[in-house]
């Protein structure tokens, strides 16, 4: 290793400063949320809490501990993420592989690729999709949240581009050795693609964790809601076209004043998924590259 030059040192210093500033910007909203959840409710309702709790207390978290709904939905979310991610990843993997072949290796690939790509731009909209999901008998089951989106075309396209980065000599060599396409896929592509699998896996996990609207559409009772769907019900939007709010709604508004508890739930809802990323990061390490596998 040779010594870094002066200009390199200056660069590294600036780099560190810039990146640190961006880091702070990314963390601030979470500190804000955390502070609200740790403040007294009146201070929170008066909008006085910024980056430090006002009237510090743990009441919100104490109530959160008793929230059956929160933990019930949490469980559903975990289940959804595990099932959904497993299925999504397998489908992305086995779909991207044939499509990563060149046209002379697989002559129908262009047809297939456009067959999939079109769906990135055209959709039928809410009502037709709902009717299909209903007609396939998925309504009110967790499969309604998993199967319709089981093949994420965007992730698949990403994957096939990563696959193309794998030198062709590799699978040609394997094919000559007599290995079938299945073997090439699982023995050679899988271990070589760990960083891209980690990337796409992360997006898939986050996608499943954050999705909330499909829960509202396809599930028929609140006990089955995943966490983000449940959280969305805490933020009540009163239709702005309504001319008057009824006596019942006034009582509901009074209830919604539990801002600290609401914020605590939003914060705790984001926490687990924030921890997934650092965990996956170890697969991003350089060195598991094509070159090193070759030996």
């Amino acid at each position, binding site marked *: 290793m040779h010594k870094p030059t002066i200009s390199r040192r200056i*660069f590294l210093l600036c*780099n*560190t400063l810039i*990146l*640190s500033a*961006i*880091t*702070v910007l*990314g963390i601030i*909203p*979470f500190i804000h949320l955390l502070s609200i959840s740790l403040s007294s409710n009146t201070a929170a309702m008066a909008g006085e809490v910024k980056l430090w709790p006002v009237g510090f207390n743990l009441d919100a978290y104490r109530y959160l501990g008793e929230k059956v709904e929160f933990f019930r939905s949490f469980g559903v979310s975990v289940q959804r993420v595990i099932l959904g991610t497993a299925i999504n990843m397998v*489908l992305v993997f*086995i*779909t991207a*592989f*044939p499509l990563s*072949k060149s046209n002379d290796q*697989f*002559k*129908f690939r262009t047809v*297939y690729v456009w*067959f*999939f*790509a*079109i769906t990135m*731009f055209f*959709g*039928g*909209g809410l009502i*037709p999709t709902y009717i*299909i999901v209903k007609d396939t008998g998925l309504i009110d089951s967790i499969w309604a949240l998993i*199967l*319709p989106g*089981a*093949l994420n075309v*965007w992730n698949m*396209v*990403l994957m*096939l*581009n*990563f696959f193309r*980065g794998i030198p062709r000599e590799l699978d040609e060599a394997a094919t000559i050795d007599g290995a079938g*396409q299945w073997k090439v*896929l699982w023995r050679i592509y899988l271990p070589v693609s760990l*960083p891209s699998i*980690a*990337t796409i896996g992360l*997006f898939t996990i*986050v996608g499943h964790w954050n999705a909330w609207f499909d829960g509202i559409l396809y599930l028929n009772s609140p006990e089955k809601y995943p966490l983000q769907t449940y959280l969305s019900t805490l*933020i009540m939007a009163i239709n702005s076209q309504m001319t008057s709010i009824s006596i019942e709604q006034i009582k509901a508004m009074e209830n919604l004043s539990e801002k600290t508890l609401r914020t605590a739930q*939003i914060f705790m809802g984001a926490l687990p998924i924030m921890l997934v*990323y*650092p965990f996956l*990061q170890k697969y*991003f*390490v*350089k*060195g598991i*590259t*094509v070159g090193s596998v070759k030996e």
Partner: protein
Amino acid sequence: MKTLKKEYLLHFMLLPGVIITLIYAYGPMAGLVMAFQQFEPLSGFFKSEFVGWDNFKYVFELPDFMQVLWNTIFIAVFKMVLFLLVPLILALLLNEVTKSWFSRIIQSAIFLPFFLSWTVLGGVIIELFSLNGPVNGLLEAIGLEPIMFMLNNGWFRGIVIGSDVWKGMGYNMIVMLAAITGINATLYEAAEVDGAGRWKQMLNITLPGMAPILILLGVLSLGGILNAGFEQILIMYNPTVYEGGDIIDTFVYRLGMFSQQFGPAAAVGLFKSVVSLAMVSITYYAAYKYSDYRIF
């Protein structure tokens, strides 16, 4: 004979994906007929009245439509460019960080805002740029007049673009980082031996190595040319910035406020789909022709 068997297996691998896509993506597309109907949920697709191109005419002839279309494209194009540029710079800067723990913390922090919805973040952004907010506090500290950012058409667009890039930049950055890790390490070793500095390595190895992914991200983002971020703008805009901030999606949303208008909404949806498909197809073939690379 051997190739046939091989291809048969490839078809077989595609089968599950094809079935899912046929059912859940192509099935609902029958609903596109809504764009040509006076759709009424109770009557369904078969009994709703067909009105030809009326829905399109109705929307396109609304007095503000051109302004709204322009706003949409303006905001979307800026977002598109920045969504490539900012993550690229970040990825390259991160690539220079030698301490892995530092790099990990930064990556996580940049990705963090991605986890929060606009419903939660919108209020924070508005607060940040309000008269009593920290940004104006800063301006006053250096002796400048405070600015009502969110009530000014120019600033509003800027804040919408900037905050969305800030929220979403982690996504593309991670894709780019993954692309960087895919670059053959021996190339760097060779360059090191040749005495190429870090800057040269970046220009000659890292960037070309990322090119396929960059082209892919670029082309696909063109598909979003008419998506300027519905949820974000709905939460952040107000009547004083309708002029510069009202986009197609918010416009259509308000059309439905008095009575849900499924037909016009579907017509706009179809229009957007056709435009984005056209944009992507053109660039797809352009990329193929000039660099011989199929992005998908």
